[in-house]
């Protein structure tokens, strides 16, 4: 299990990285934390011709508060750095809670926040989390940049809107609204293992405890993170009763997800999990909303 040969580039600035990516075109592959890519290379399931290693670009490692109460996270910030950051915990308590479910500590010490998003594994937490938190991504290329909403970023399993010469540079999390509550529910075979089904719920309630906004994002049960439509249709403007939540859970599990059967679970079981987890997640999120 040794990787096939590749050309290696280790730029020390973003500009240099973008120039390298530009020159390499389809041959170039960004190496961030490498915790998914390198195992795949060891199995020789991935054989990039060239790797552009971002680990020497110090300017991509940061967690900065934004003036509106949100956060900007440099793409190379290690998962464990985000997990342990006090400002993240204060502004987005759901974030460290979700990150704790990513693999194991040694992986989180190396894996990166932006890398996991750009990798777009349908079973990964951070793509779904970014959708749930209405994240915006700064995508850069040589001589240009664009902003992409998390919702519009994921195209399929391991597929995003990123062009070969582009790089995800920064993730911006807009502030949580007043009256927000969030919950993360996951079922996996083992701690740190891939989710068989998982849901991140972010809700906002008004002073009358009515639902102002709700984002229920499911993953591992479809090709990309799935932002539920029925949740907002049913809940927004209403008091989230147990019945309403149950209705949402039922509807999502029946209509909005498409889990497959794999060696660890049948599609039926995973669809059932979605129903259970959405109910638990929404209940918890509304309880936490304040």
């Amino acid at each position: 299990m040794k990787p096939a040969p590749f050309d290696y580039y280790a730029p020390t600035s973003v500009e240099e990285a973008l120039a390298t990516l530009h020159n390499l075109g389809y041959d170039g592959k960004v190496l961030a934390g490498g915790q998914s890519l390198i195992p795949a290379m060891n199995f020789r399931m991935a054989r990039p011709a060239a790797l552009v290693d971002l680990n020497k670009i110090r300017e991509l490692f940061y967690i900065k508060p934004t003036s509106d109460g949100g956060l900007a996270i440099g793409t190379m910030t290690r998962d464990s750095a985000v997990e342990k950051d006090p400002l993240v915990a204060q502004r987005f308590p759901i974030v460290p809670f979700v990150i704790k479910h990513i693999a194991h500590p040694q992986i989180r010490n190396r894996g990166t926040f932006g890398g996991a998003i750009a990798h777009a594994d349908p079973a990964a937490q951070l793509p779904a989390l970014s959708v749930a938190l209405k994240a915006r991504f700064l995508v850069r290329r040589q001589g240009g940049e664009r902003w992409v909403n998390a919702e519009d970023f994921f195209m399929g399993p391991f597929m995003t809107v990123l062009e070969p010469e582009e790089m995800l540079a920064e993730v911006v999390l807009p502030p949580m609204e007043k009256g927000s509550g969030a919950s993360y529910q996951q079922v996996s075979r083992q701690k740190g293992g891939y989710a068989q089904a998982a849901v991140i719920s972010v809700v906002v309630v008004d002073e009358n405890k009515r639902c102002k906004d709700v984002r229920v994002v499911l993953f591992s049960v479809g090709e990309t993170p799935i932002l539920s439509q029925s949740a907002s249709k049913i809940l927004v403007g209403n008091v989230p009763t147990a019945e309403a939540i149950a209705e949402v859970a039922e509807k999502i599990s029946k209509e909005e997800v498409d889990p497959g059967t794999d060696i660890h679970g049948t599609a039926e079981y995973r669809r059932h999990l979605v129903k259970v987890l959405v109910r638990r997640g929404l209940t918890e999120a509304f309880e936490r909303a304040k």
Partner: protein
Amino acid sequence: MAGKYVHQSILRLEDPELITGNVQFLDDIKLPGMLHAAFKRSDYAHARIKSIDVSEARKLPGVIGVYTAEDFGDYIKPGPLQVPPPTAIKGATYAARTTMPIAKDKVRYAGEPVAIVIAESRYIAEDACDLIYVDYEPLEAVVDLEKALQPGSPLVHEDLPSNEAGHVRQERGSWEQAVKEADLIIKRKFFINRNAGAAMENRGIVVQWDKHAKQMTIWCGTQSVIALRNQTAARLGLFESQVRVITPNTGGGFGPKINTSLPDDVLITYLAMKLDRPIKWFEDRRENFLATTSERDQVHYCEIAVKRDGTIVGLKDFFYHNTGAYNPYMMTVPLNTQTHTVTNYRVPNFLTEFYVVFTNQMIVTPVRGAGRQYGVFVMERMLDAAAKELGMSPVEIRRKNLLPANAYPYYTSIIGQDFVEGVLDSGDYPSAFEKTLELIEYDKFVKEVQPKLRAEGKKVGIGVACFSEGTGVGPYEGARVTVGGNGKVVVTTGYTSQGQAHYTTFAQIVADQLGVDVKDVKVITGDTGYFGWGAGTFASRGITVAGTATHLAAQKVRQKALKLASKILQAPEEELELADGVVRVADIPSKFIALGDLATLANPMRGTMEPGTEPGLEAVAYYGPPYGATGAGAVGLIVEVDPETMQVSLEKMAFVHDCGTPVNPMVVDGQIHGGIQMGIGDAFYEELIYDENGQLVTASFMDYLFPQATDMPKKLVLGHMETPSPLNPLGIKGVGEAGAIPIPSVFTQAVENALWDTGVEFDRDTLSPSRIFTYVQQAKGA
């Protein structure tokens, strides 16, 4: 039997070096000029090889050679049987189709080697594998155990009339009679799966040929240095003395490392000679999953005949056993299944019959437990089913049928893996069972805790299961004990170690006999250069068989020391004692001679020697038991099941075992712990899954779920019993596999109990939340 050291939990002597990284494991070996090997493995489970093009691979810089079957000529032939066929069993039939070192004409499992590359580095060797092009004609794969025997099934070995690899039928008493006597006959079908050994260190081999000395050295983490040496020598036309096999420190064995005459050792020994360069092959994890032997599935059709009061009058078990593509290990696993079906309970009439089946899957050989847990699973499940039908509790039906404490020796009438009739040498099963109930607080749980938690909506369940473990079987092991002029003792044995603490436990045995500090006893295992006789590490027989041989050798040395010291100290032997590294007159401590000085005198350089005297304070002893010593015990488990997600949490486990005299109780506990982890894997996580094309879909730790720390029971209580075995002087029984054996049985029972209101009944092991969910859905629908 306790001594100054035996029966004491002394800390392991091997640990300080081991824990600081100061030891050598296989892949740490680096020899001048060493080359590296990689295998090109079949992508198909079953296919004819039309052609193999290695021309591009050969051209790659750094590649020394690329070889296919045709490059080896007549050297390539099926390897020898590793275990004899069961000719001792009347009417047993078998077809032996042993391992091909490299596929010739046809591949029979996905992962079977079709070419081997030798290169300057493993990286380059793998690059070259990518450049080998094999043209296959795919054939339908034989995957399903039962379909494999149906007429018209594709054949794994086309020279055989069917995929049947063997058939054994044994009967105790008369099943027919049992049917007549029974009030009730209950039938069940079980599907049982089994896991990989998955030692943390993969397999590997380093071979060096010294063409001047005509001497081959093999480093290999094998469980049997003797088999590897002998088979290598025979194959290459060498004397055994020309081949030295050394086991470096080995990172776990668990069964699969017992195998010899596999592609790696057959081909690499040959190529190291041919190329006159040392060669290393160190298996990677993917290869370990694909191509290292493991256990697999059995399908059982079972009937139990009971009286209305729960008394068993008979059991009939008919099963199919998957042996994979070849069967070099013959029938050890299914024979263990047969014997262990009825070794805990009184079963006057027992009919057991199995078919061994070839499939296009990896070869099946023993993994910790080695088929015993299938037998235990079948029996325990049948008791659960009978209890339910009869309205009894699982405890009551077991109490009713457990072999009583006065039943030993108990003859089972069933011939086992050691080809003699099973005999339970000693034990006290009812006490072990009662102790387990106590430790798991069975009554309290059932009467108080469970009703309360159930009222709160919690799904908690309890299970309790019994097991036995036939251990320490023959044929024999040997050891040499030598006292040096430095007063220290060295023990050498042909036995091999993979972490079982032999360097400590064997030293404990010797230190007690010779009165030396245990730290002054050095144990050398698994090096044919030191000791060239023995069978190998299997069937939990290390401390029982090799440990007893060590004990006997130490006793002989003791006798020699006493005899010589008696002359020198001019005192009768009866008045002498061995202690503190000296032989002294018991009443006159000042009158002594150091053991080291005695050893020097025992090897006189001039003068005469009394006829019949052998030089040195040294002795060799061999020990071969007439049959194995049977350990036993019971386990209780409390689980909580999330009734929606079917996640199972292991709240508490109580495990009571009896392995006779524990030479080192701390080490015994460790063995149980490890077994439990493997049993939990077996029950709930680990599974080698082949798809309908015979592709292994769990060839990585991403898909093959290895039990982690958070998967273990939150609380574990061990209970100890000591019923010494009458078979050996120390009263030892093996314990290496005990922990692994009863876990699937107790797990299924406990989960069933937790979900009692669904009426669910499990007919298989290796459950998962999804499987439990499906069972519950089916039970609801029924």
